[in-house]
C-alpha cells in the first residue's frame, strides 16, 4: 500500500514538473493538405511569404502540394470567408491566414476549427482569437511602435513637427496594434516634439493610398512626415510626394519592402523605413501549422518545437490581445541609404 502511495506521489511530482525543455522535433513526410491564405493576391510581401512556405514544405517533404489561395483586394472580406468555407468543405488539414476581415472572419474560422482543421494566423491575427490555434507574429507589436517612433524622431530631428499615419484598412488588427504601440511610445518625453495630427486609411490599395497621402498634405500644410505601417501605403505615399515634388518638405517612413522603396530612399523621399523578412514569416508559419496538424505539438502555452533553419520557437500567451496564443518571430531590419541597395537585390 505504502509503495503504491509513494509511486503515486512520485508520478504526481513528475507530472507537476515543468515540461522537458527540449524542443519537439517534427516528423517530416506526412501528407497534410495545407492552405496559405494571404490578405489578397498580387502583393509582393505575400508572394515572399509563399516562397518561404514552399521552402518549408520542401524541407518537411509534405507530399501534398501547398495551396496558395487568396481573394482580390476589392473583395477581401467576402473572398477570405469564401476560401475558408470552401477549404472547410474540402476538409483540408491546416489553414494559414493573414486575416484582413477583423472579427468578421470569426464564424468561418470557427466552423473550420470545429471540424478539426488547424488554423494558424500569421501577419495579422484574429482579434478575438476565436477559432485560431496560434498567431505567428512577425515582430513584437510593441517594438514595431517603438521602431516607428524612433524613425520619426530620426527624420524630424530634435525640432520635431507634425506627422500623420497612413494605414491599411481601419480594421487591420496588426496595423491598429502597431499604431497603438507607437502612440504609447510617443508618450515618452524624448518624443514630445513629435505631433501626430491624423490617421487615415488607404485600404492597402495603391491608388487610394496615393490620394490619401496627397489629401494629407493639402489638409496639413505644415506636415513634415507621413508614417505608413504598410508596404502598399509607404510606396504609394513616397510616389505621391515625389510626383508632387514635395520630398524636401514631407518625408515618408514606415514599413516597406526594400525592392519597392530603394529608389525613394536613394532620392531622399523616404530616408528610413523598416521591415522583417516575409520569407521567414511564411517559412515559420508553415512549420507551425505542420507541427500542429501532425500533432507534434499542441496549441498550448509552453509548447516548443524546432523550425528548421530558424531554430527553436515556443508558444506563449499573446500580450497584445485579451485572449490567444502567439509565436514571436522577430527581429526588425531598419533600412536607409547605407543598406537598402543591398537588400533590394
Amino acid at each position, binding site marked *: 500500500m505504502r509503495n503504491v502511495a509513494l509511486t503515486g506521489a512520485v508520478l504526481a511530482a513528475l507530472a507537476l514538473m515543468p515540461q522537458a525543455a527540449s524542443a519537439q522535433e517534427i516528423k517530416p513526410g506526412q501528407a497534410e493538405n495545407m492552405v496559405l491564405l494571404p490578405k489578397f493576391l498580387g502583393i509582393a510581401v505575400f508572394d515572399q511569404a509563399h516562397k518561404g512556405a514552399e521552402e518549408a514544405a520542401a524541407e518537411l517533404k509534405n507530399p501534398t502540394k501547398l495551396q496558395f489561395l487568396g481573394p482580390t483586394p476589392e473583395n477581401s472580406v467576402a473572398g477570405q470567408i469564401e476560401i475558408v468555407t470552401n477549404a472547410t468543405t474540402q476538409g483540408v488539414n491546416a489553414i494559414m491566414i493573414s486575416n484582413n476581415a477583423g472579427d*468578421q472572419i470569426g464564424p468561418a474560422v470557427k466552423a473550420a476549427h470545429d471540424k478539426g482543421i488547424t488554423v494558424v494566423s500569421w501577419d495579422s491575427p484574429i482579434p478575438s482569437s476565436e477559432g485560431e490555434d496560434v498567431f505567428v507574429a512577425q515582430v513584437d507589436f510593441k517594438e514595431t511602435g517603438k521602431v516607428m517612433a524612433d524613425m520619426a524622431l530620426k527624420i524630424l530631428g530634435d525640432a520635431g513637427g507634425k506627422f500623420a499615419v497612413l494605414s491599411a484598412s481601419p480594421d487591420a488588427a496588426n496595423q491598429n496594434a502597431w499604431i497603438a504601440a507607437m502612440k504609447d511610445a510617443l508618450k515618452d518625453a524624448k518624443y514630445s516634439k513629435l505631433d501626430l495630427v491624423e490617421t487615415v486609411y488607404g485600404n492597402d490599395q495603391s491608388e487610394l493610398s496615393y490620394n490619401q497621402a496627397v489629401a494629407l498634405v493639402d489638409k496639413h500644410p505644415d506636415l513634415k512626415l507621413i508614417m505608413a505601417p504598410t508596404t502598399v501605403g509607404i510606396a504609394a505615399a513616397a510616389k505621391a510626394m515625389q510626383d508632387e515634388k514635395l520630398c524636401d518638405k514631407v518625408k515618408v517612413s514606415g514599413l516597406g519592402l526594400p525592392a519597392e522603396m530603394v529608389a525613394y530612399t536613394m532620392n531622399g523621399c523616404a530616408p528610413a523605413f523598416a521591415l522583417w523578412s516575409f520569407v521567414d514569416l511564411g517559412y515559420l508559419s508553415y512549420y507551425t501549422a505542420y507541427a500542429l496538424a501532425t500533432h507534434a505539438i499542441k496549441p498550448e502555452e509552453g509548447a516548443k518545437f524546432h523550425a528548421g533553419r530558424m531554430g527553436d520557437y515556443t508558444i506563449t500567451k499573446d500580450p497584445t490581445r485579451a485572449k490567444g496564443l502567439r509565436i514571436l518571430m522577430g527581429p526588425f531590419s531598419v533600412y536607409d541609404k547605407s543598406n537598402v541597395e543591398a537588400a533590394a537585390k
Partner: protein
Amino acid sequence: MRLLARLRGWEGLLLVLLVAIVAMNVTRSPYYLGVENIVNLFQLEIEKIIVALTMTLLIINGEIDLSVASIMGLAACVMAWLFRHGAPMPWALLGGLAAGGAAGAFNGFWVAYVGLPSLAVTLAGLIGYRGVARILVEDRSYGGYPAWFDAIGQQPQLGPVTVSIAVFAVLFAIVAVILHDSGFGRIVYVMGNNLQAARYSGVRIKPAKLSLFVASGLNAALAGLLYAARLGSVRGDLAQGFELDIITIVLLGGVSIFGGSGNLVGVGLSILVILNLRNGMGLADITGNTQTSVIGALLILSVLIPNIAQTVRSNWKGRET
C-alpha cells in the same frame, strides 16, 4: 408552349450552361454534392441574390438602383450604432430596416416625383449612404450581438437550411407572383417598355415607381442585416462593391438594361449559374482574379450573344425579302 418557346431562347442557353457547370462540378469535386456544400453555395452569396430580386423589378421597370450595397451597409451600421447605444436588438434591427426604407423612399422621390434619372440619383445614394454608414461606426468594427442574432446568420435553423436561404426562397416566390401574376407586375413591364404609353393609359406612374424604390431599399436593408448576422460584426465597408455583382446577376438573367423585358425564371437560372460556377471554382482552388475574370467573361458573352444573334437574324431576314 410558352415554356418551350422560352427554353429555346435565353433561358434555354442558361439552362444548358447550368447543366454543363453542374456536370463539371460533380465530376471534378467529390465534395460538391454534399448537403453542407450546397448550403454554403447559397449562403456565401445569399445577401446578393436576395437584393437581386428587387433589382430585377427595378431594371424591368426601366430604372436601376446603384445604392443597394450602400444601403446594406447603412442598415447594418444603423443597427450597430443603435445596439451600441443601448437599444434592444429587435429595435436596433427595426431601425436598420427603417433606414433602408427611408433611403429607398429618398431615391424614389427624386426619380418618380422630380423626374431625375435613377442612374444619377442612386449613384449619389451609393456615395451618400455609405458616407453616413462610415460616420456612424467610424473606423471600428462593432460586434458582440446576442447569440440568437449571430445564429440566424451562421447556423442552420430549419433542417440544414439557414434563415437567409429561407428568406430568399419566400421572397423569390413573392416577387414571382408580383411580377408574373399580378396587375402591378404588368404595370412594371408596361412602364419599362414605354413610359409615355403607360402614362396615357392611366397608370399611376409616380406611386408605382416610388414603391419599387422603397421595396429595393427595404430589401437591401434586410440583406444587410442578414449579412451582419453572418459576419457577427459590422464595419463601415460592409457589402462595399456588391452592387455590381447584383446587377451582373440580373443582366445575365436576360433582363434588358433598357427595361421592359426579362423574367424571374432567367434571373433564377442566372443565380444558379453564377453560384455554381463560383463554388466549383472555389472547390477547384481557383480564386482571386482568375475567378473574377471567368465571371466577367460570362457577362461579356451574355451581352454579346443576344446582340450577335439579333444581327444574324435580321441579316437573314433581309436576305429573304
